[in-house]
């Protein structure tokens, strides 16, 4: 894999800006799992703004596909059962842990929240453990 510095930094800057924008306009944390989980629970009365943000994410995908399709040129090598298991783990884990890479990783760390820093260290560690052990045991994605 080629090492790139500018794109990750600039993309990260845009992510931070988008999260600030949601905070400025709506006073909310830009945590995708929290926004989606709250939307799916159908219990909260604030589904409209959640829907607006989630639709924005999907629309952004359409824009990416139209302008820089290489960003969505997915090279998915994982098998359907692995993908299903990953989805379940990500869904349950992010709700139980009150956040994912965006809520804890961007907004939480950005607010210098100790809780989010610990969460990020844990999910980075278990993510590394999963990726490394699959590579060592199976010699590639399963």
């Amino acid at each position, binding site marked *: 894999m080629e090492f790139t510095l500018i794109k990750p930094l600039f993309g990260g800057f845009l992510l931070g800006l988008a999260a600030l924008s949601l905070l400025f306009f709506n006073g909310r944390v830009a945590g995708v799992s929290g926004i989606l989980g709250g939307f799916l629970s159908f219990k909260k009365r604030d589904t409209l703004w959640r829907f607006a943000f989630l639709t924005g994410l999907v629309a952004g995908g359409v824009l990416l596909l139209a302008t820089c399709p290489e960003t969505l040129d997915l090279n998915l090598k994982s098998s359907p059962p692995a993908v299903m298991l990953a989805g379940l783990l990500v869904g349950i884990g992010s709700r139980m842990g009150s956040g994912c890479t965006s809520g804890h990783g961007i907004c939480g760390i950005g*607010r210098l929240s100790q809780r989010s820093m610990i969460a990020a260290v844990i999910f980075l560690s278990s993510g590394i453990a999963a990726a490394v052990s699959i590579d060592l045991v199976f010699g590639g994605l399963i």
Partner: protein
Amino acid sequence: MGLLMIFLSGVLFALGLGISGMTQPEKVVSFLNVVGDWDPSLIFVMLGASMTYLTGYVFILKRSKPAFARSFTLPTSRDIDRPLVFGSLLFGLGWGLVGFCPGPALVALVTGYDSVLIFLLAMGFGMYSFEVLDSRLKGDPDGGAGLIIKR
């Protein structure tokens, strides 16, 4: 107007995910697989994003309220409890298994790949079941799963 700005925040968030490389699962996996052909570039995504947020949020929170909402709604919990630890652990395992997390998976919906759809459905099911299970156990003082009810 408020909803439009929220929508545009989502669009900008998606562009950030795409440009940074987070929407490419193989790039995420090669970042997490530190013993393989390691690609450290995604460290700079989290750095760039959280530093930007850190610089700006102080100024935003100095305002009495958000532009289009009654008040700021920020997490208040400070507990390092078992759900936080165990949930983050499970999340990371799923993230490292395939290389997708919630935001990028939603952005990739447009590709229409079977894997993306399977991931999103499984993730939505996981989130929904946790919400249902969690609120059910929370209402029961003697619920067996202390792991979930202790918040």
